[in-house]
């Protein structure tokens, strides 16, 4: 099983995730700027930010415990581990055996859990606010996320992500069907929430009363902040690649070959840029919602994915 090549694939995947993550957010920022008729920072700005943070040393609250220091590291690792399970440029993940969709969701939950703990550790009320809101949104996101992918999983009969992407890609365009679209829309809404974008959260703001993710990490600074930010970007990338490779896995490499991988990477980049563009459009065209209107939004996605399942069963006529 464990050939060197597979190990290479994994390492490559880790590198890709870490490297591409800032790029993606840079791209999205750029597209947003474009739609807002601004020049905006270059797409490599996130790299500069992280590099800058690396050089700064951190100011730590006097109240914190070891949780505060451990949390970023653990979340980072958890997100990366989730990354090992999600096909990005090759559908047959060597470590795919270690977990399926549910594992991915719960690994992301683990990351979130520790970030939220850290937000409470410093004892500032902003942190508490952020953690509270984060968990609140998460508790609505998780069921919707699961259900939307179950809709696809029902189709192929498995929750193993590699297997799903293989199956869907092998199906060709015939895979595109009402429930496929419904599920995709549902997952897209969830992606908005997961990546903390308008109308759920505003990544750009630093106004304490409106932010969610930023409020959680308010106490972090310097290297630790760098790690946190990088982790967030990685998570965003992973969510995007879920969208890309679960619903439109076409072009993904099915076996190891330099050419295939190169093509797959290219295709992947295009996909996530398109998705990012969509995201940017949504962000620029809507205003941020009140926190307590979010349940409406997410219940919409929940309903969509449920409809997806029902229509699937009707279409299949079982």
């Amino acid at each position: 099983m464990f050939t060197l090549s597979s190990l290479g694939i994994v390492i490559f995947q880790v590198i890709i995730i870490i490297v591409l993550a800032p790029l993606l957010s840079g791209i999205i920022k750029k597209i947003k700027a474009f739609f807002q008729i601004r020049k905006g920072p270059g797409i490599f700005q996130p790299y500069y930010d992280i590099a800058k943070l690396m050089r700064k040393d951190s100011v730590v609250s006097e109240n914190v415990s070891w949780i505060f220091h451990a949390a970023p590291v653990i979340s980072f690792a958890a997100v990366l581990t989730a990354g090992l399970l999600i096909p990005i440029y090759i559908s047959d993940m060597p470590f795919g055996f270690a977990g399926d969709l549910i594992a991915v969701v719960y690994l992301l939950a683990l990351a979130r859990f520790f970030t939220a703990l850290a937000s409470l550790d410093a004892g500032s009320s902003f942190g508490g606010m952020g953690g509270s809101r984060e968990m609140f949104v998460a508790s609505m996101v998780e069921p919707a996320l699961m259900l939307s992918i179950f809709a696809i999983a029902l189709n192929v009969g498995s929750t193993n992500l590699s297997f799903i992407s293989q199956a869907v890609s092998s199906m060709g365009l015939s895979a595109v069907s009402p429930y496929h679209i419904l599920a995709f829309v549902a997952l897209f809404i969830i992606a908005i929430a997961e990546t903390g974008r308008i109308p759920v959260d505003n990544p750009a703001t630093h106004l304490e009363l409106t932010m969610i993710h930023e409020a959680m990490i308010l106490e972090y600074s310097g290297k630790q902040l760098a790690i946190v930010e990088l982790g967030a970007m990685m998570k965003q990338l992973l969510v995007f690649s879920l969208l890309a490779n679960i619903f439109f896995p076409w072009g993904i490499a099915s076996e190891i070959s330099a050419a295939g991988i190169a093509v797959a990477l290219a295709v992947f980049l295009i996909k996530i840029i398109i998705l990012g563009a969509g995201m940017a459009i949504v962000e620029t065209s809507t205003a941020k919602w009140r926190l307590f209107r979010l349940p409406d939004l997410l219940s919409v996605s929940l309903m969509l994915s449920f409809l997806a399942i029902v229509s699937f069963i009707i279409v299949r006529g079982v």
Partner: protein
Amino acid sequence: MIYTYSFYGFFFFILIGAALSIIFNKKDRLSTSASFISAAIASIFGIIFSLSVIFGETFDLALPGSLFFNFGFSVDRLSAFFILVISVSVFAVSIYSVGYMREYFGKKNIGYLGFLYNIFILSMILVVSANNAIMFLIVWELMSVISYFLVVYEHEKPETRKAGFIYIVMTHIGTGFILLSFLILAGGSGGFGFEGFRASGSTMPPLYKDLAFLFALIGFGAKAGIVPLHIWLPYAHPAAPSNVSALMSGVMIKTAIYMLIRVFFDFLGAGVLWWGFLVLAAGAISAILGIMYAIVEPDIKRMLAFSSIENIGIILLGLGASMIFYANGSPALSAIAAIAALYHLFNHSVFKGLLFMGAGSIIFSTHTKNIEKLGGLIKKMPMMAILFLTGVLSISALPPFSGFVSEWLTFQSLLLSFSSGDSLVRIVLPASAAVLALTGALAAFCFLKAFGIGFLALPRSEHAEHAKDANGPMLLGMGIFAVLSILLGILPVYVIPFLDRITGTFTGESAIDKSISSDYFGTIIMPASQISMSTPSLLVFMLILLSIPLVILFLSGKKQGTVYETWGCGQPVSTARNEYTGTALSKPVQIWFKNLYRPVRELRATYSVSPLIKQSFKFESRIGQVFENHLYIPVTGYILSKSRMIKFIQTGSIHAYLAYIFGTLVILFMFVILGGK
């Protein structure tokens, strides 16, 4: 032969413990160690016994009964499994209790508690090993009554007495339904032996089967605490001493699950589809409502009690799925669902025991159950904090801890409806999987609150200021459970085949190699749908990948940054007063589901000189308990008002009394005359 010895060994040591604790009644320290250590030894025998049954064959023992009662024990693998669960919990909790009991030295009668404790354990073991309905009812009620006495151990507090009353009445109502169910079964077989029940279950007319099922579900559901029969848990568990609530919540309510499996599969041969759906629905409702009430609960033990309701719900989800598959004629799938249920049952007994013991040690050192009054404990009691965190991570089903594995299995068994033919099944089961997902997320929120508010940041009251770490035995007892919940998390490949030996006995088929198998690196594989999951390798990956951020941290220059106070818009915030409270933390959920909680708000301001200058400002907010306010209180109120009306017949006037007799006479005459015609 080993089992007979270990069986008797268990009884011997339990009774020794009971006796010693009474004998040394006056000497606190002595009676404590005597009763609890012998309980621990007994539990070791229990473990040996149960294992020897699971890997050996069924153990039967007939008591020398009289003509009227023919009692006996019959321990098959299912019973043995529950004996195992009970014994494991008892072992850890007993060790913990040795330290925990110091709380009561000189205050309360330790010997009395030790005695009840041992008898309570005995009764639980008897419940799962009885082979006769009458004997079962006797030991079942014994268990309830003893636990009642344990609940009212601190009976000086009125709320404790109220809790005990609610508990004993609810459990008695449950017993009433159990009685009916058994009577129906006995009507089929003509005897009260469980053997007869097995025979009669297949031959009974369907209506009787349905009734027996319903009564059993209600009766045992009242003990298991499924909504809406759950109201006693949040009262009883906080009232009891923490080691007792660890046992009550960890294992006692599981005995009800045992009997549910016994009745549905063993006696009635779960052949009816809607039974499964009903159990599934009960599970879903209990899970979601339980965790919702847990989230907004400031009392840590009440919160744990509510979360027990949630976990019972999850177990029932697995059980219901298993019943559905069984009714659909796919025993292998049914087996895997049952494995999921039993797995979660075992896990819950471990981490809930751990958490209750943690709550106990918090109370032990801070003398408050209110999360809002805690805080900063991670510095005051570091060891305890780590153990508690382990429990929190497990119960929040975060990989790679135990809760994750069992919930993953439950998810998979719900999604096995992929391959089911019935379209209703294919809609309902994924939907309940979504419910399970919501429950898991809320549970994470709930325990984030518990740990974050309770242990992190600054102490919120002088209770927490002067907290000290738990003493040796307590840490040891909790440590055992912490290690167990990690092992159960990373070694499913050994646990699942073990559980399969048990589920095979009632689902009739082994799931191994048909619907689940294990692979290298502790991987679980479900061949049906190429799904695989391997917590150990997840753990390994995480550990490896931890290196990356660490490397980043260490490579980039100075390690520790400067220490400064928490930033709060320039205001000094390093006081406990303006920390984020637990209520505020869970407020979004409370607003989200305000139709369920129906919160009661009170806003009172006192003014000093003029109505413009507020002197003090008091805000109170309570959560309405829907089922109490809209189901139980009205019913009891109705009964009592009717009773008041009836009481008027006892007027005290002798003439009225004579008139009653005269009236009765006349009525009976009419009866005869009309009957004569």
